């Protein structure tokens, strides 16, 4: 802009988008902008606690609509890119939505809406005054940003945005137990993101760029000379820590059972899956050859994560901690898909992530409702829920089946895809780990059903049964999704396979960021 008069001949179209951004492209940043805006509005009205719920739900409904529109556009036209400040990539920060990012963002938005409705009942006026809903909005801004950004340093920034909002949510209530859990969560997650930042620094030293499409283009030519395998190993460690994979999973069982149950539900559904998302994005799209070299390590970690999750779930009597281990077992399954790395395996991992986002959130909400009805979190004190609340028990049974991966619900298809992919490459032990882990989880959840639902109640009933829409709507809605996907898997299977092949061959992604033909005209679609 402040070009001296002597150098007017500079051609800015090489570095700047000169045409105004098409309205449809704004869709890529709209989810993030929407959530930051609603978070700011909620901060402004923080004293009028009564308004919070309505504003937040309106924002989340809008978020679901925007993410659905984005997914529709991406599946119709391929990846969409928008650059910040009109600086062309690799100079400017690009937001790029491909099928994988868009479908994950939509799943996250749906789950956040369900949790937001549940929170209308679960979070009292004190929790709202403390800022539950603003934190929820900012958490979703971070989550959407992480799914949609096309710049790896920007990904780090969104990780931090969602991390700091998650701290706020985690200590909502300031109980000693929460502070204990939050301290461990905060320190270990901060170290995890710092590891990620170290890897980003090395990546910048090697590539001289932070744009993911640019990295994907340049990786092939640098493969012989640069220590890319070391770099990939660092990224895998950092993201495995965020995803709570064995042996860096210990922060999850130490903290996820301490906050309000709706917060646990959001964390269990969303936060670990962001680690998996970043892992898939970096290892499958940017460094596929290096992932191949590290495949055995990742596979062993995945198998151990699955077994640890299953055994841990068997050993817990607190239902929230039990669900935490079910989440960990799921992470192992998704990592198995990353370890195998074929498009079929990656699509299995993506399917599992989508299933896990919905099913784990529903499972935590369910645990919260069971504890409210039964008056305790411990399996040795719960009982008689079947007689007390038959409909709720039916929904619970469906969700347990889905979470254990039994037919005919949504847990089955990703497991089948992963099993087939691991047998195809001859990794029978990985397939065995998937099956053993599913068996252990089935045992653990069946025991929950046996003790908390079928067993006659050891103590007199504490909670009351009331068909409150703020509970039945989110639980019923999420269960309906799980059932629907279990019975009619075809569209989602296609979607996951499309997302996986878009990662395996990122030509369309790169084309969307660096349009070869339109580069001279300076227009980015």
């Amino acid at each position, binding site marked *: 802009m402040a070009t*001296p008069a*002597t*150098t007017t*001949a*500079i051609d800015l179209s090489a570095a700047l988008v000169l045409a105004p951004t098409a309205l449809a492209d704004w869709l890529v940043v709209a989810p993030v902008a929407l959530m930051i805006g609603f978070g700011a509005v909620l901060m402004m009205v923080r004293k009028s606690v009564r308004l919070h719920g309505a504003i937040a739900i309106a924002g989340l409904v809008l978020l679901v609509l925007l993410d659905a529109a984005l997914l529709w556009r991406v599946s119709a036209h391929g990846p969409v890119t928008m650059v910040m400040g009109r600086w062309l990539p690799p100079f400017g920060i690009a937001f790029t939505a491909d099928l994988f990012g868009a479908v994950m963002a939509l799943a996250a938005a749906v789950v956040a809406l369900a949790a937001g409705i549940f929170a209308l009942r679960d979070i009292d006026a004190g929790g709202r005054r403390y800022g539950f809903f603003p934190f929820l909005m900012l958490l979703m801004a971070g989550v959407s940003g992480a799914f949609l950004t096309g710049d790896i*340093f920007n990904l780090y*920034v969104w990780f*931090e945005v969602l*991390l*700091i909002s998650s*701290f706020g949510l985690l*200590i909502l209530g*300031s109980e*000693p*137990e*929460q*502070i*204990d*859990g*939050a*301290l*461990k969560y*905060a*320190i270990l997650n*901060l*170290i995890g993101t*710092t590891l990620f*930042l*170290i890897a*980003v*620094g*090395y990546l*910048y*030293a090697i590539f001289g760029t932070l744009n993911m499409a640019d990295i994907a283009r340049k990786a092939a030519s640098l493969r012989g000379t640069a220590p890319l395998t070391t770099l990939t190993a660092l990224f895998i460690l950092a993201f495995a820590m965020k995803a709570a994979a064995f042996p860096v999973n210990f922060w999850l*069982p*130490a*903290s996820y*059972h*301490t906050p309000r149950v709706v917060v646990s539900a959001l964390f269990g559904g969303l936060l670990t899956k962001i680690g998996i998302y970043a892992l898939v994005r970096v290892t499958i799209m940017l460094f596929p050859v290096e992932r191949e070299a590290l495949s055995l390590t990742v596979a062993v970690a995945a198998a151990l994560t699955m077994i640890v999750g299953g055994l841990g779930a068997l*050993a*817990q*009597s*607190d239902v929230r901690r039990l669900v935490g281990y079910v989440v960990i077992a799921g992470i192992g399954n998704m990592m198995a898909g990353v370890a195998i790395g074929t498009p079929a395996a990656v699509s299995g991992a993506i399917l599992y992530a989508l299933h896990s986002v919905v099913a784990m959130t529903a499972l935590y909400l369910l645990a919260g409702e069971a504890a409210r009805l039964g008056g305790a979190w411990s*399996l*040795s004190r719960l009982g008689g829920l079947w007689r007390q609340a038959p409909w709720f028990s039916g929904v619970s049974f469906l969700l347990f089946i889905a979470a254990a991966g039994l037919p005919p619900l949504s847990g089955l298809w990703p497991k089948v895809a992963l099993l087939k992919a691991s047998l195809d490459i001859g990794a029978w032990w990985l397939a065995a780990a998937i099956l053993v882990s599913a068996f252990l989880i089935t045992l653990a959840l069946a*025991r929950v059903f046996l*003790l908390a639902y079928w*067993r*006659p109640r050891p103590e007199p009933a504490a909670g009351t049964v009331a068909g409150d829409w703020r509970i039945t709507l989110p639980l019923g809605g999420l269960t309906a999704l799980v059932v629907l996907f279990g019975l009619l898997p075809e569209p989602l299977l296609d979607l996951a396979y499309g997302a996986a092949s878009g990662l395996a061959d990122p030509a369309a992604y790169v084309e969307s960021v660096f349009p070869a033909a339109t580069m001279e005209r300076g227009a980015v679609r």
Partner: protein
Amino acid sequence: MEPLFAVLIGLFFAAAVYLMLSKHTVRILLGIVLLGNGVNLTLFTAGRLTREVPPIIPAGMDALPAGAANPLPQALILTAIVISFSFFAFLLVLTYRAYQELGTDDTDEMRLAEPRDEQLPPMGY
């Protein structure tokens, strides 16, 4: 210049890891601060070390002079400093609060969320 910085960063990381292996929360926090600064130096070194040539295009030219500093790592570091500072402030308060509520700064003694005497689930009715 780069080897010197590499050694310095190594010292930062070594001290940070040593402090983070402690079981007292304040030392862990100090370790995290050192780690953050080590990472900032890593980013700085990653973006090329130069003598002081500011990245400003002189009048009458349309490109940076040779050997100018790289402004991007400085932008990255600025972001990272702001983030790590705010996290440090939060963690400091959280640690103090944990000391008040739990009466200890020893992580081995913080067992409220994961009690030592937690029972296994019942084996039958």
